[in-house]
């Protein structure tokens, strides 16, 4: 493992990250002023509904920006390196996959259909790791073993593997260069619940054995609880609440988080399900003030005008962007 910090300075620090895309209707602000820190070896889950900007955030961390990106600014510090100061070439050779790697949502789509999967993992090692082909072969087999795939998988084509196996290959590839941080973008959403549990177990094992930090992106807060030390809830391009899992799941402060949790059908509880009326806002023309206010049952006048930012929650462990906390704190 490279770059493990003995505490104090976080592995990853993001400040006021902004990412917009140009579209016909005007700029879409997919990520709008996101800030957080992540310690080494820990997992942060970013939870949000579709279109909340969570995948954009992950792609921004790898600097995989679409062609129509119109704004990309803020601070990203990884292991003390100011990533935003790096040129594209430097970022590619020094940070991408070497320090931050990623497992994508669709395992099928993320593999090249015409090469054997072993060769695709090996390619990373030879091309990026500078290893000889035989050393890379050896290492690839180790990686396959690590993700619990039989050695003969090396010579299989993607279309010959099941979804779960392909996702394991994607994990092997992500681990190839010993990164400090792995981004897991909905890595199980295309899989059945049984296989999903297997892959989640694999992540847990890798996390405890290798001590890799990860950012787990999901629309499913229950699934996120399977691995997350910290949870960040994202809504309309912003983080509305971030804190330790215990806090977020046990004592959510933001009305959106509360509603989201109440909307999850529980397996062992008959609590009636709640829902949030209305739909998320259009990110090219978001509402003023708090972005959640049009759907919030507690919305006050202030929410429509002023933009809330990380306000400590009662536990003191979390931050939530909600004026209710401010009222409670000041009163």
């Amino acid at each position, binding site marked *: 493992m490279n770059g493990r910090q003995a505490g104090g300075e976080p592995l990853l620090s993001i400040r006021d990250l902004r990412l917009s895309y*140009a*579209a*016909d209707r005007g700029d879409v602000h997919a990520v709008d002023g996101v800030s957080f820190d992540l310690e080494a070896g820990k997992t942060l889950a970013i939870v949000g509904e579709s279109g909340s900007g969570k995948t954009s955030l992950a792609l921004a961390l790898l600097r995989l920006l679409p*062609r*129509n990106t119109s704004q990309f600014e803020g601070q990203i510090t990884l292991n003390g390196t100011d990533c935003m100061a790096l040129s594209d070439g430097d970022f590619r050779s020094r940070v991408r996959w070497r320090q931050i790697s990623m497992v994508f949502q669709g395992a099928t789509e993320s593999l090249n259909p015409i090469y054997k999967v072993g060769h695709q993992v090996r390619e990373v090692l030879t091309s990026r790791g500078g290893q000889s082909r035989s050393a890379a072969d050896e290492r690839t087999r180790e990686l396959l073993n690590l993700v619990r795939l039989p050695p003969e998988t090396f010579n299989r084509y993607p279309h010959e593997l099941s979804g779960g196996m392909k996702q394991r290959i994607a994990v092997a590839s992500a681990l190839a260069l010993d990164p400090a941080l792995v981004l897991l973008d909905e890595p199980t959403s295309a899989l059945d619940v049984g296989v999903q549990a297997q892959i989640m177990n694999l992540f847990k094992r890798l996390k405890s054995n290798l001590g890799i930090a990860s950012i787990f992106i999901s629309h499913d807060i229950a699934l996120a609880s399977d691995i997350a030390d910290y949870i960040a809830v994202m809504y309309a391009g912003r983080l509305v609440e971030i804190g330790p899992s215990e806090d977020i799941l046990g004592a959510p402060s933001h009305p959106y988080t509360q509603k989201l949790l109440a909307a999850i059908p529980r397996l062992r509880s008959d609590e009636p399900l709640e829902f949030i009326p209305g739909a998320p806002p259009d990110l090219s023309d978001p509402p003023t003030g708090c972005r959640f206010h049009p759907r919030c049952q507690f919305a006050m006048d202030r929410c429509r005008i002023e933009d809330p930012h990380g306000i400590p929650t009662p536990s003191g462990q979390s931050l939530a962007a909600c004026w209710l906390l401010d009222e409670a704190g000041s009163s």
Partner: protein
Amino acid sequence: MRPGEALRVVLRSGSGRMGIGLLAVLVFVSLLVPFFYPLDFGLRFWNNPIAWADNPKAAPPAWTNLVGDQAPSHRVFDAESPSQTVETGPATTRLYSFTFDHESESPPTFLSVSVGEVTFYDRPPVISMTLERPDGRAATILQEVVRGQRPDETPPVTRFADEPRRIYLTGDTNSLTATSDFLQREFDLRLTEAELQGNLETALFGTPTGNEAAEFTPLTGEYTATIRVITYDARDSVESVRFVAAGGVFGLMGTDTQGRNLATGLMFGFPVALIIGISTSVAATILGTFFGILSGFSGGRTDTIIQRLADVMTNIPLLPILIFLIFVLGQKLWLVMTILVIFGWPGLTIILRSMVLQVRSGQLVEATQALGASRWRIMFRHVFFQMAPFIVAQMIFFTPAAILAEAGLSFLGLGDPSLPTWGQILEQGFRTGAIFIGYWWWILPPGILIVITAMTFVLLALAMEPVLNPRLRETAS
């Protein structure tokens, strides 16, 4: 995407605007043609040499006079009634005078006189022609008696009723003799008919440089050609008279070696090309769409049969088969179009089938089926509309292919003689060796028109691309 939206996307691109502009021009010209052309234009005019006899042969367009040497303009004089009538005893002389300025250094390329239907009772009329030159000299180069009454005929006798009597002075021996006499009388220049042969106009429209050789200085100025018809009965009649001093240039687009006005032929080519292209592609697209949707939707044996058939059809090289079939079955445009349709549908069918399979596995079909909709309704109300933009694009894309195929076939000499096309005009030029002689006006315009027409549709197809692939639209913006 709905049609209006699609049109906006097409119009947003330069190629789309250009394509639609060109298409508008093509359609406009094509719509004009039926007003000016008879339906049997091909057989009655275009491929009938008589219709073009009085045009200069292989003459470049008139506008070439704007640059380079001045070639004489083409002059045609028609008269139905004489400009003057002189009575001398029982005889009546009808004078038809045509005056024109000849400013060119070159003489007219040929001279001809035509006389329309002549009716006489007593003696046959006499036709003569005199050319009065700017220097005051006059040459009578034609003197001819209309053939007289045969024993089996009773007056009134009619001559030249079917077609006018045309005297091609340039190649007429009597005219050569008359000109030879004229030169001897006026300039004391002795030239035999053989020496004059091919120089008739040079002599008539020039002044000899000496009195030995057939060399002449051009004589510019006002010429008058007077045609006299002498009749001997008051009831005799002459329908019309024509005099032609053929030019060295002709019309907007020049002429070919048969004297055909290329502008006329090219103009006629517009609707023909559009009809070939559009009707072929529409028919092939309808067939292809029908079979494609049917095949993809039905599955089973229907699908297998259609796919095998389509597979074999697409594997047959089109042009050789087209050549063979047209050669054997006859040079008919409808046949060419039919064959193009027969070989044109399978490509679309194969692509559509795979698209239908995709749509069929989607939930729209399932949902509609559950509503109780019939197979036909699902296929042609839902599935078809999903693919409509693609089908339209394919139709546009197929249009130039049909036009080019017909042109290629015509170029090989298998065009339909009853309908002149651009390809045929080009082929005749090529066969005559126009490229080697330098008759560029015969070769270039039909080719340019074919390319522009084909290009119009290719541009439109190109502009359709963002409609079909929305991802391209995003990156382009």
